[in-house]
């Protein structure tokens, strides 16, 4: 028994954190809010270079061949940075889903997709668990749940309607495909199992990003309340502010092990993996929502302006808390697993 990451895992995490701290600062996130596609290609390329994008792609296809436990801390870092782009869909969902199918002989394009994905040149989109498909306009590949079958759709084969998110860098679309314009990758039990596994991986990844977002919001707020003065003292000296932030840390601290445990269960494909993912997503969604509220309240009016950075993280947190099953949905699924 050892509930801690390895030195290698922590080192990789630190490397990614440093990279994103340098390359994905708030002004870059603002850039993605304002530009055409909501992407930051140079940051994506840098992460591909580091192996993050293709972490779950087999080594033979240019990836690192690692697992969800290796990925979870890195996803947390992408959350901390509010990294724009389809990280969850591409890195955490499409890669392992395709890797699993790639062993079947009848789907030759899959190996190619995986190689491109690992190289950072293929962005993927998915509709698992929600009709809102992120970045479908720029995705080279859209994986679709079509009535329980796993389908692939290629650019140009879909009608897209843009759907605006509170998070300006999240470009969402509803997708319409003619049935014969997509390729079925898996059907029946296998299709359903692929889709379920893909959904769980998306929920886990969202939970991990929510941890990072919560941590960033807490950090911003701790910094602010130490420096902002009212009534002649830093507002961080007031007990009410202290208790807001203690509550924020409490929620975050107890969500974190749930997410790491779920990463372990998914990586090892344990029978309780779906339940563990649901617990993780429920905890992380609630924690990020709570931390966001404490953070905004402790900032006061300045936090309510878009010139200050807090809102970038707050809105991403709201969007991810609602995506891949919100807290209530996942608690319901835990309940079913508990037989109630």
């Amino acid at each position, binding site marked *: 028994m050892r509930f801690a990451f390895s030195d290698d895992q922590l080192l990789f995490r630190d490397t990614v954190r440093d990279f994103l701290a340098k390359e994905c600062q708030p002004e870059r996130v603002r850039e993605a809010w304002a530009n055409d596609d909501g992407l930051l290609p140079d940051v994506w390329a840098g992460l591909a270079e580091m192996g993050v994008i293709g972490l779950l792609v087999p080594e033979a296809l240019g990836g690192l061949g690692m697992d969800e436990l290796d990925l979870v801390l890195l996803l947390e870092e992408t959350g901390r940075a509010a990294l724009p782009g389809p990280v969850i869909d591409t890195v955490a969902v499409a890669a392992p889903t395709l890797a699993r199918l790639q062993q079947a002989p009848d789907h030759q394009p899959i190996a190619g997709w995986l190689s491109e994905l690992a190289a950072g040149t293929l962005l993927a989109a998915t509709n698992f*668990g*929600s*009709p*809102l498909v992120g970045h479908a306009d720029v995705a080279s590949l859209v994986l679709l749940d079509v009535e329980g079958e796993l389908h692939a759709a290629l650019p140009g084969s879909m009608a897209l*309607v*843009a*759907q*605006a*998110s*509170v*998070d300006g860098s*999240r470009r*969402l679309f*509803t997708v319409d495909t003619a049935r014969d314009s997509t390729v079925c990758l898996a059907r029946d039990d296998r299709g359903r199992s692929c889709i379920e596994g893909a959904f769980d991986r998306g929920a886990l990844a969202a939970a991990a990003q929510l941890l990072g977002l919560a941590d960033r919001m807490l950090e911003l707020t701790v910094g602010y309340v130490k420096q902002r*003065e*009212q*009534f002649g003292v830093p*507002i961080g000296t*007031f007990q*009410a*502010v202290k208790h807001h932030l203690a509550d924020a840390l409490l929620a975050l601290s107890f969500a974190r092990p749930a997410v790491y445990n779920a990463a372990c269960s998914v990586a090892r494909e344990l029978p309780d993996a779906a339940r563990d993912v649901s617990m993780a997503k429920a905890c992380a969604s609630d924690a990020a929502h709570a931390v966001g*509220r404490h953070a*905004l*309240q402790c900032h*006061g*009016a*300045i*936090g*309510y*302006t*878009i*010139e200050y950075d807090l*809102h970038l993280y*707050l809105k991403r947190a*709201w*969007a991810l808390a*609602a*995506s891949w*099953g*919100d*807290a*209530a*949905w996942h*608690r*319901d699924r835990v309940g079913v697993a508990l037989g109630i």
Partner: protein
Amino acid sequence: MDLDWTSAEQAFRAECRGWLASHVPRDPLPSGDTREGFARHLEWERILHEDRWSVVSWPAAYGGRDATLWEWLIFEEEYYRAGAPQRVTQNGIFLLAPTLFEFGTEEQKDHYLPRMAAAEDLWCQGWSEPNAGSDLASISSRAQRDEGAGGWRLTGQKTWTTRGAFCTHLFGLFRTDPDSERHRGLTYLMVPLDTPGVTVRGFGRLDGDEGFAEVFLEDAFVPDGCVLGGVNEGWSVAMATTSSERGLTLRSPGRFVATADRLIDLYKRQRRAGAPAAPSSRDAVVQAWIDAETYRLYTLADVTDIVEGRSLGARSSLNKLWWSEMDVRMHETALRLLSSAGELTDAAPAAVDGGSWAKGFQFSLSGPIYAGTNEIQRNIVAERVLGLPRR
């Protein structure tokens, strides 16, 4: 205890309801906190004014209907029930006007009130400064006496001024005694924003609208007629206003009763649609209705006190705590019912109810912050209502 409306009040309600039914725009206006939306809302304000619905509780001489406080409550209930537009004039009507009625000279009232009622003068509030948020008494914007010109020269900066970029006038506190500290030596001034030396810079709010402004003042001159109440007595003049803001006048129960009704409607639709979160949200939906209804009842008691001459005093902090936190809870419940659709804005064709729940949620989060943070309100309740020691 008499919980019936008189027949006159019922007739007033019927008149409100009839007029609103035939005048409220069929399609919701764009947000009044954007430049375009503000202009559209001004058209609406002028329609209201034309038929004397903009300031029902004011004397007829100023454009009102001499309505009682009870009738005002009825108007508000009907207004929100009808889904009528937000009141972009509210900072003038609900915050400045009560102060003008109490402290204004006849000349000031005759000049300012009719123009306010007609939405000719558009008022924003200039309380906050970069270093004076919760700590309002630390205001540093100065007004220097210009005896020769018979007025004051203003220098400083106001900020987080709601709709400041679209308004024509600002009211706020300025330090008129340069040697004073904290609550003393402040004066309540009314400042036309086209005064030379005044610069207004709009900036974005969390909810995406350009609803905030910074107002920079550099040696801007205003004549003595712009002083409301006595020189150096601004704090006590202003306190009358902040008490209104916290209390019922800014946030009448009608608003929340309408939100609760919309929430129940949303719940029914989501349940019919088989939304998984519906069953576990029912208790919270019921609680939302109860919260709004208790606020309505609490307000009836408040209005009875006011009508019978009993002051609410620091109790108005309880109102503010209640409505601001209830509003957040109701919107959190709505987002839970919406699940993934909760992140969609009004610009999304797939948004439920035009994205109004996400927008409303974001707006609700400002409630525990503005008009004195809820932390400050809890201090006030503990110290001034319960009598705990200040330290």
